[in-house]
């Protein structure tokens, strides 16, 4: 069990399974096929991200440094929420970038869908967390990682 303290951007309490990318998460490239489908899944379509490509991001806790790519992604979070295919939480090792902040906050305030968001968890967090780990998030920004093998 490992504990990390970040800053709650959109606070909340949740548990879930980790998916991890150590490169910039391209929101638009990852979700551009999911937002046209109504399967309840969000299969990552970003061919430039071998860590996540082909994996279902819906209801997972995405661990990432920050987001990258097109500014078109602002409305993607709202759409994913409507399709019940949004990730459960987003955990940023770095300070959250404007693109991610804007999209997640708009989904929260205008679509009533909170995707729990914590940033500034540090490089050690991304070094430690692995795909399949169980993660528990508290409203204070405290993140506990239960290793998959434990």
């Amino acid at each position, binding site marked *: 069990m490992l504990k990390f303290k970040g800053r709650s*951007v959109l606070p909340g309490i949740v548990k879930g399974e980790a998916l991890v990318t150590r*490169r*910039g998460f*391209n929101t*638009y*490239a990852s*979700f*551009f*096929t999911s*937002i*046209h489908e109504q399967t309840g899944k969000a299969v990552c379509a970003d*061919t*430039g991200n071998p860590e996540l490509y082909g994996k279902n991001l819906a209801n997972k806790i995405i661990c990432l440094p*920050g*987001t*990258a*790519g*097109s*500014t*078109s*992604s*602002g*409305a*993607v979070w*709202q*759409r*994913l929420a409507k399709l019940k295919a949004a990730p459960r939480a987003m955990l940023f090792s770095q*300070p*959250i*970038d*404007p*693109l*991610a*902040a*804007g*999209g997640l*906050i*708009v989904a*929260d*305030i*205008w679509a009533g869908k909170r995707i729990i968001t914590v*940033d500034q968890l540090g490089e050690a967090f991304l070094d430690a967390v692995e795909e399949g780990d169980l993660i528990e998030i508290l409203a204070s920004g405290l993140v506990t990682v239960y290793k998959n093998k434990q």
Partner: protein
Amino acid sequence: MRLSTEEQQILAGSRGEMLQRVMTTIVAYGEALEAERLIDITGMGHFVIPHALPGISPSLEMLDALITAGLKTAKPFTLDPVAPLDFKNWWLNRKQIDSLEYMYRTQKQYDKRMQALGLWNPEACTCTPYLPEVGNLPGRGDILAWSESACVVFANSVLGARSNRNGAIIDLLCNIAGKIPLSGFLTDEGRRATWRIEIKTDRLPPPQVLGAAVGKTVMADVPYIIGLDRFLGHGINSRTWDYLHELGTAAASTGAVGLFHVENITPEAIDYRTDLLTGEYKTVTIDDRTLRELTASYPIMWKDKNAASAKCFLGCPHLSLNQLQWWADKIHELLIKHGKKHLTVNTTICSAPQVLRKFIENRRGWEILSESGVRFSTACPMQVFDNNLSIDDAIITNSNKLRVYTHARFFPDNEIAEIMITGRIRRNR
């Protein structure tokens, strides 16, 4: 975050529930970005979403709520290229047309709402709003709340204006309030470079390849690029304008670059030189080998990897008048060289409506390209093909951005020009 009295009153609902909600969103945005305060926007807006697509555009219900409350942007705005409803220019089959008609079925309603919210004029739709023919040209130091990654990086780097990489919807909300959190590229500190990139190539690299290399290296950081003035000269002129526009677009889409400085060329690099570098910066060299290896690493996403190319799209980002003329001259030269009258590959070239109109008025270049079989569009190839509709099409492009978001294969200008004429792709690529 410290708010002015007026901002606090709006947040408390003094100017209605809807503007209160807008301000609540912007304040939350500012707190997320750890801004100390909001700052007034001084230039026109430019937004990334001109089309009505679920999951991409704001919902009509949300736009109606804003309009019904009597809200619109404080200054007019321009939009990215129009929806791709000019089907004849895109070499589409019936199934693709039917799908696009269905996808964009609420486009007219969306257009009306954009006009009600402050769209500058019905033709103000391009990813090159700052071209003189279009006219949304912010000045140095202007505070903007733009989206469209290609436009943000150009406005910051080449024009010296100040905008963060805002996403869709938050761009509109900030421009309605006329305010944006003071953070990131809006601050002097946020504009300093954390990478020193030295270009050591034998000749001027293709801008979309160099941009991709820069983006892949620095991701969201700010690079200070050295060595391009050997090829481009000092300061900004129409050639460097076009070159840096393409470079920035590729850097923004392969990484998340929102600002770059180029020694002796971009305005802040001319004024402040290496003082723009932070105390602890990283250094990297990009040479011809780096760029060769990068392009060789691009996967071929076509179903049939050995297919002959069926379609070619140029103009992502939209081409300037000079670039259109360059393509006319290039195609003319190659048609003569190969003894041909027409292109082998079905080709569409994209540009702003105002730029295309001037190109047509100039006649010569337009006649060369039209007679060779080129079709023109003011829309954007990404909006046609960044979905599974194009999965069977063997598309080629000179845009690294289009390569990132579609199944298109990328080739630099000179190489793609040969393919357009002959239809042949060198096997050793």
